[in-house]
């Protein structure tokens, strides 16, 4: 009786469930299966238990990649949001044509193909005669090899990342800003609040849910960083991560193990370690937010 009653509903969600099972559930479960096997993509998988996980956790590249990732995330996510918020406030202060112009201009890097962005930045960072070194030269600063000096490589990547991501985050934050009722600012102004006080006491609290989304999305994206460091270091499956692996990140290492060394079992285990980390940290963020709201 119940089945008959709800059958049309199940039928209506069936296409989604079938596609979800085919394109999400099956790849995830087969990935989990292969992560416990020695498999090169073709031969019969051989069960090896936790060996792939042990190998990855013990490998020097994994610890380098995770250390790089930790530094990268702790700088790029907050910095990216700060810049995007600044841009959103700036664009929000304009109206009409100028608002459109700035919004589009700051959004442009988001739609630029990654290889093109990397080519532009490789030129900007070029030692001796690159744009950045030319400007630094005017102030007497000697040439810096941004993409090959291990002290500067991470910051060079973060600058590119912020440049690309700021436009996307700005658009989302801008939408959030537009939803803040004008009366709140009006009342604050009447009470004599400065612009800065309005931002701290009205804008940021009212943007809370949007900022949380931007933060979470930025974190998840940063955990999976791949194309920018890959292109900036001129990586290939046979050599990646740049000088002394200063720009080696987990997804690059995973791809290299898979397609460079045809160890797909290890690559699958790597993917699961990364997924577990992302899920755990994201859950922690949601938990903290729920706890704060309850308080």
């Amino acid at each position, binding site marked *: 009786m119940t089945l008959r009653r709800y059958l049309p509903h199940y039928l209506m969600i069936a296409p989604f469930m079938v596609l979800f099972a085919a394109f999400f559930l099956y790849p995830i479960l087969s990935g989990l299966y292969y992560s416990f096997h020695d498999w*090169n*993509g*073709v031969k019969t998988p051989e069960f090896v238990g936790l060996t792939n996980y042990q190998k990855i956790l013990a490998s020097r*590249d994994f610890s380098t990649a995770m250390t790089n990732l930790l530094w990268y995330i702790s700088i790029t996510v907050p910095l990216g949001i700060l810049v995007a918020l600044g841009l959103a406030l700036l664009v929000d202060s304009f109206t009409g044509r100028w608002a459109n112009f700035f919004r589009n201009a700051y959004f442009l890097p988001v739609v630029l193909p990654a290889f093109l962005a990397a*080519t532009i930045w*490789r*030129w900007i960072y*070029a*030692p*001796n*005669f*690159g744009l950045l070194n030319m400007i630094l030269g005017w102030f007497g600063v000697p*040439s810096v*090899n941004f993409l*090959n000096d291990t002290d500067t490589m991470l910051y060079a990547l973060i600058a590119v990342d912020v440049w690309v991501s700021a436009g996307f985050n700005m658009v989302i934050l801008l939408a959030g800003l537009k939803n803040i009722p004008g009366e709140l600012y009006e009342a604050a102004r009447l009470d004599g609040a400065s612009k800065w006080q309005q931002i701290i006491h009205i804008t940021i609290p009212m943007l809370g849910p949007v900022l949380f989304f931007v933060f979470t999305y930025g974190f998840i994206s940063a955990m999976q960083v791949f194309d920018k460091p890959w292109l900036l270091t*001129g990586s*290939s*499956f*046979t*050599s*990646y*991560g740049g*000088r*002394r*692996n200063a720009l080696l990140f987990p997804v690059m290492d995973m791809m*290299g193990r898979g*397609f*460079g*060394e*045809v160890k*797909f079992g290890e690559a699958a285990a790597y993917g699961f370690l990364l997924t577990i980390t992302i899920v755990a940290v994201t859950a922690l963020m949601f938990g903290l937010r729920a706890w704060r709201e309850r308080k």
Partner: protein
Amino acid sequence: MKRITRLRAGIAGAAALIVGTAGMAEAQNVTLEYWVYSDFAQGEALALQQEFIKEFTEAHPGVTINITGKGDDDLTAGQVAGAASGNLPDVFMNAQSVGAQLVEVGALANIYEKWMAMPQEFRDQFDEDALASCMPRPEELYCIPYTGFGSLLFRNLTVLEQAGIDPSVPPATWDEWFAQMQKVKDAGLYAIPDETLVFNSIAEIYATSGSSETWGFNWDDRTTRIDPAIMAKVLQKFVDMAPLTSGTSRNDQATKDLFISNQLAFHTVGPWVNPTYEEAAKTSGLKYDFVLIPGDEPGKTGGIRSYEIVGVAPGPNMDIAFEFATYITEKQQMVRWAKLLSRYNANAAAMADPEVSDLPLIKVSVEAARGAMEVAAPYFIDSVPSCYNSTVIDYASATADGEYTPEEGAQEMIAELNSCLAE
């Protein structure tokens, strides 16, 4: 007389190919997927590839060939993934250096028997060393060597003149070349890109002192073949060159721009940059030439050589795919290819053909490839771990920066390479 013999051999080869393929000429509805590097799938190169396809399909009614261009990593990823999913392209190009991965996943068929069934005249067309590099063991042949390169020294003649160097006499030894680099630096210009940033450019400079026997891998005991004394000598060269470089790698667009804008004297690289420089010569008056990379002694050359390969996937289309592979690598096609693009290839008979042997780029390339070092031999045996190339780069650049003495750098590099291979 020699010409007549060559002509006869060519006709015999072509006739044998036609006879050999006649059995296949009856109608069969087959679609072959043919994957090439992306630069083979654009412009005049694509037009010629399509002409080859047209000729082949006309002789083989019912056969359709789809050509697809892909970037380096996309080719490898697509072939590995294709092997896993059972959806491989039938004929494809790739680099020798990823041959071992492709053999491991079963993307490359062993074509030894089919090859041996080909007429002797056809088999004799190919460069012996190039063909040997496709054979890791007796009776195993995983590719037909196709296009290739020997690295060259591109010289900006305007920069050399500005530095007071007579460009009519190319440097014959490393010492002469290095003296010229210093003169260029003294003239306030860049001598050379930073050769420590890319594995292949490190190999090119290593080859000025070393050889194929002291480079590459001993797969039996998983150790590097690099000789510590030679590597120490080469690292000293990187230390000496450090103040003279542009700081960019040989592959950077910025390097080409510096060369074109008369700020960089030397660029060691493969012949694929020539179309860019040729165009710059026409449009902005760039004066340049290309010569052999000088080695430590007169007559010895530096640089590396490598070949793009044509591989055939195992499967129901293997016979016709192999036939197509032999058709496109056959002398007549390789002569047309070389004439069109002035690019060196592994068909020695084509390279010796009077129609192409006098083309300047071909002439130097043939000589360069002959004296060059294999970049990552032996091929098709085992995958090179990613830590290998990065270790070579890391120690070369760290030594050039003064973090190690050349002797320390060489010792530590070799120890780490051995541990990387052992892992």
